[in-house]
């Protein structure tokens, strides 16, 4: 089993040029034919943040925990969530959406989640740059803890890949998966402390929100950008998240490798 897993990972490594190329194409294809072109990649997050700024700072006037502007609190959670939900939804329909390539050419469809992740990472990076500019604006102090963002970004990807493989393969056989994922993501959003503050949960029940692996990521982003806390402080949660990710990665890889053989039959 391990052998098969490593073989699978190795074949993906061999496809790195393809991943790079497809990522570029995927990113460009979203904006091809538009006048503003790649500028849209900046306009989108910028306007999203402006809308939220208007709501939270002008309209509702809420403040985040420990005097952090609520807009910053929200956006630092929203950016990784957006990356997560976008990649998950697009990848779920990935294999089915590339039906022609799968049926008519020798196409290594297992690279698709990487491609979508790559394309979403560009938007994510732009988001992060805007967040950093916002931090200047609100004069939030910077610290070297900010590099922890890279760690959280990488483990987010690690967690995502396995999930994407499982869902994308399942969606080939049952289209219901693709329909359901939107609803699940919506629920998941409200179960994760993105727009609400985790302190509203009584301290006896705090562990409940940490069952949700996305809490780890989102709180992690905030730790690195806003709270200036070390990621080593919550060691048990880190272990929990990493083992969950490893499990999802291994299962995803094995399931995808197995079901891939039947793709051409099923669609």
């Amino acid at each position: 089993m391990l052998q098969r897993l490593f073989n699978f990972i190795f074949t993906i490594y061999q496809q790195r040029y393809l991943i790079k190329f497809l990522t570029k194409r995927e990113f460009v294809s979203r904006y091809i034919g538009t006048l503003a072109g790649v500028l849209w990649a900046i306009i989108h997050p910028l306007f999203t943040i402006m809308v939220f700024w208007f709501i939270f700072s002008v309209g509702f006037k809420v403040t985040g925990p420990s005097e952090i502007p609520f807009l910053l609190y929200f956006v630092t959670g929203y950016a990784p969530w957006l990356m997560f939900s976008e990649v998950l939804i697009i990848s779920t329909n990935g294999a089915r959406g590339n039906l022609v390539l799968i049926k008519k050419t020798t196409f290594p469809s297992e690279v698709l989640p990487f491609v979508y992740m790559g394309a979403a990472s560009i938007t994510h990076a732009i988001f992060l740059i805007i967040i950093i500019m916002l931090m200047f604006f609100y004069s939030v102090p910077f610290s070297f803890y900010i590099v922890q963002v890279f760690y959280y970004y990488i483990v987010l990807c690690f967690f995502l890949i396995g999930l994407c493989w499982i869902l994308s393969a399942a969606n080939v056989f049952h289209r219901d998966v693709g329909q359901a994922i939107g609803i699940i993501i919506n629920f998941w959003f409200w179960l994760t402390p993105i727009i609400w503050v985790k302190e509203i949960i009584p301290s006896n029940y705090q562990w409940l929100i940490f069952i949700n692996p996305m809490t780890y990521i989102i709180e992690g982003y905030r730790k690195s950008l806003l709270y200036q806390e070390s990621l080593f402080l919550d060691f048990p949660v880190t272990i929990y998240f990493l083992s969950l990710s490893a499990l999802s990665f291994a299962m995803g890889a094995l399931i995808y490798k197995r079901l891939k053989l039947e793709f051409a039959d099923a669609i």
Partner: protein
Amino acid sequence: MQYNQSNISANNDIAIEVNNVRKRYRLFKFRNDRVKEAISLGRKIYHQEFWALDGISFSVTKGETIGILGRNGSGKSTLLQILASVMTETTGDVVVNGRVAALLELGAGFKPEFTGRENVILNGVIQGIPEKQMIEKIDEMREFADIGDFFDQPVGAYSTGMFVRLGFAAALSVEPDVLIIDEALGVGDVLFQEKCFMKIRELQQQGVTIIIVSHSGLIIERLCKRAIVLDKGNLLYCGNAVNAVDYYDSIMFSRDKTVVKNINNITHQTHEDNVNLNSLSKDDVLKEFLDAPYTGDLCVRRNSYNDNEVRFGNGNGEIIDYLILTDSSIDPKRIVSGEKIDIYIKFIEKNKMEEPSIGLGIFTHDGIMLCASNTSQKKMTLKPVEGKSIYICKLSFNCLLNEGNYFIHLGLTCRLDVNVIYYDMRRSIACINVEPTKKFEGLCDLDFKFTEVSNCLQ
């Protein structure tokens, strides 16, 4: 069925080895059945099985070009998909050595919003060629596709022809060890086809192994030395391309299941029959035809008999035998254009027939009536042979047809009244193949006489 070429010496000479490959499709009546069956964990079966490939074995040596012939639904595409590892075989082994490029569909995966150039590069990268290498070769591809400035326009704006050209250029840019081409050569205009042929020749010389699927026997004969014939998931023939094409033609025009199953034996027999007939003289065969007592329908044993004939009638009379004789052959399946042909038709009166009239029509494979006539049109009254109920009629004509397959209809009717009474109509009872002639073009030779004007004036 073992068609493995056992004389292949070393293992590393083999590009493709297919060993007893079977492919099963599970057919579900309703979409939900697939889910239901999965949930029941094998306790309940909702699907029907369909074997698209039923035990195929063959091998291809490196640098060889092999053709695959077969009717629609014979399993060709499934086989190609398995070779291109797009699909997995249910049982059996497939070994393909080297990089495979599959032209299962021209321009598969082209994105309409990207330009031709971008799509060609994309296609190459998907097939595993580094982007840099593709960019270096792109001018060559541009030249091959030969679609001018459209090369840098979005593919969505292309005409079908341009799309096909680009698809071909993209596929050939991959420089594969094994190239799989499915029906792709029949598209494009003549000049572009010629270009593709040249390119394939070039690849052949470079030692690329090529697998070509085509419905066109001409293409297979032109490009391949060896070909295989598939039908209903079985490999019926593997060998010399010209024979394979003949073989394919023979099953094309006989759709009866049982016949196809045993076609190996049948062709074998007809072959022997031919030998026997050839050893007999024309007179002997004719005598045998004329004297044979009525023992049932003898048409079926003729070489040209087409078991896909359409037969109807009230049964008062029956056409029981026919015989084709030409200058050079007896009961032939193939006829040389320009020969004189005699067709003998024998029919029997079962119940009282009024003024029976026998007719014959010749049709092209796409149903154009070339000529048809009957004895009543020729004001003939038929008489039974020696007062018995058997009638024999002879009809002669010069075969002025061009090359191709032709169907012969025979009809036994009564045409006294405006309403025709059909005793026994046997449409497409025979299929004959006319061999190529270079003397004219078109369906039939109207025997043009050319004369130099200077001679006329004299």
